[in-house]
């Protein structure tokens, strides 16, 4: 008889515990669902503002507008066709075959090149200012 009572107590305790756990889980699920809905709304709102910002970015990048701004604020003009170069080897700086000796640009290398113990005499100058200017910074184009 005592065994049976004990059995019932254990079983009903299990039922109560599992019921409580179920309640807890279902509560969690409900809260998670609410969170999902809220997050969905936030995502939708963010996506919408991304679209608006993209449209505004496209509008601000309108070439007519950019050209007017560039004419007013930038001290540069469009390059002439003859100023464009296709490969960098045209510039003596990068040409290994060039007879002109030009020290490397990076400070570290420059120190070595100017080392007095270096057997190679320093013959030539840096590329003239003019050479630097003919290198257009946008040979591959860009939104203009």
């Amino acid at each position, binding site marked *: 008889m005592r065994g049976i009572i004990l059995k019932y107590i254990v079983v009903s305790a299990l039922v109560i515990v599992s019921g409580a756990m179920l309640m807890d889980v279902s509560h969690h699920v409900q809260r998670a669902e609410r969170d999902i809905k809220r997050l*969905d709304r936030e995502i939708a709102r963010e996506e919408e503002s991304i679209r608006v910002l993209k449209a505004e970015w*496209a509008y601000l990048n309108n070439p007519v507008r950019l050209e007017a701004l560039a004419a007013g604020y930038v001290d540069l003009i*469009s390059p002439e*066709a003859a100023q*464009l170069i296709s490969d960098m080897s045209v510039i003596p700086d990068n040409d290994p075959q060039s007879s002109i000796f030009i020290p490397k640009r990076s400070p570290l290398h420059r120190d070595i090149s100017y080392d007095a113990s270096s057997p190679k005499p320093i013959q030539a100058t840096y590329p003239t200012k003019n050479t630097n200017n003919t290198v257009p910074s946008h040979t591959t184009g860009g939104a*203009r």
Partner: protein
Amino acid sequence: MIWKHARRQAILIDGDRRSSVFMAQSRLSILGVCFALGYLLVMVRLLDLAVVQNEALFQEPLNAAVARAQDIKSLTPRRGDIYDRHGFLLATTLKTPSLFVDPSLVFDEASLIASLVKIIPDLNRSKMSSVVQGKNRFGWIAHNITPAQQQAVLEIGDPSLGFKYEYKRVYPQGSLFAHLVGYTDRDGLGLAGIERGYDDVLSAGEDVHLSLDLRLQHVVRRELGTAMEEFTAKAGSGIILDVHTGEVLAGVSLPDFDLNAAGDAEDREIFNRLTLGVYELGSMFKIFSTAALLELHNVPMSKTFDARKPLKIGRFTISDYHAKKRVLTIPEVFMYSSNIGSALMGQMIGGKALRAFYADLGLLDAMRFDIREIGRPIVPKIWRKSTTLTASYGHGLATTPLQMSAAVASIVNGGMAVHPVLIKVDEGAIAQTDVRVISEETSEKMRKLLRLVVTKGTGRNADVKGYALGGKTGTAEKSVGGYYRRDKLISSFVGAFPMDNPRYVLMVMVDEPHGNKKSYGYATAGWVAAPAVKRILTSMASILGLPADKYDADNDMAVSLEPYIHDKKKKKIGEKSLVSY
């Protein structure tokens, strides 16, 4: 006795019980196995749903939930965006608030209307009061208001006002792509351009990537506008075409209109002069008649045509604009754009063959294109003997500028037919067609002739040193009310470059230009359209990063044609112009 009986009984029962217990046990275990299998099935399915199919099942409802959260009461998906070939946004759909009123909740009509007009200036007061006094519990006040206006309305705090969200088509580039991108009505139905031609794709929510290049489009529009302004012209159009893929890289028709206010545009602005308008483009047809002659008859470049006096046929008199009054070789006919010479070429080709050749180039039928605004060429109904002569220099034949540039592309690209497209072609895609229009050799000869026009002929004003541009001018008198008017011209120039292996075809057409001081009063193609093409080419080179070649006048493509050109002053030996970087 009883005991004995009972015992027997017990033995009996015991035997029965044993067997029935055994039976029940086996039944139970079968049932148990069944249940276990059932649970196992459920577990497997759960595992499948939670782990294996997780992605597929839970992504889909999330998207649906996001769509629901947009709170737009519409089952149709958001219309797809339109991009240029580099991904610049040309058309998009934004969710915008629309303001409505519930008349039964209106407390003070006059002050409500007054404060609304302050926020949205273009409201119609009388229309407003009829909406506010309406019997329905719903009335629109304004569609698609701006976020700032919405905020101001919220600050009124009137309980009778409410918002519904609607989609609105927005074109960030304004009027830059007016005719090719096109526009929609308020319900998002495409009415023109790609919006109409690709309505089914866009309305299914898919994005469209066009072949157009925003930067080139701007350059063509700017330079065409400059030419129109400079020569006080009525209208114009311009194109850049890829000669291999047929992609339209830029397509402009002027005057144009702001796509965001398409409803306010005038008819002359909406009219698409690139694909819908048909024009007699004049001497450009000499490209095709000359190509036909070289293709169909094995004639040398030295073949001559007598252009000493005007040609009379029936009531027509064919004369030259740039009259040389002598016997001309083929290169001379082409570079001086001699009508008499071309008419004689046409005579040699014959009407049937010339017509068939034009048809092969797609000049006699409405072309297929990605937008629906397509003009049908005007072709003489009866092809008389005189028609052959006039058609060989483009008189009496009207085509769309797009059609013309596609035909030129077919001539210069090595002879393969080109069909223009407005949708981006994937890089590395195989050649568009394998329909050959002319042979490789004829194409090469034509390229030399076209280059000659720019180095020595009527198109000199288009020459850019270092870029082997070839082309042909076309100046045609407009037919007004059945008469050709000397003072109303259509000046156009079609060019291709680099001529040794063409990649791009450029064309500019200007409608009714007027000569000015700078052009010595001329309004012909060489003065109006050729400089515009030159400016487009110069800008295009820096945008696409196309460096100039070292220009060497002695190695120019057209040099090989020089023996066929009658030259009064012989070229001095040692005169060598070299343009370096």
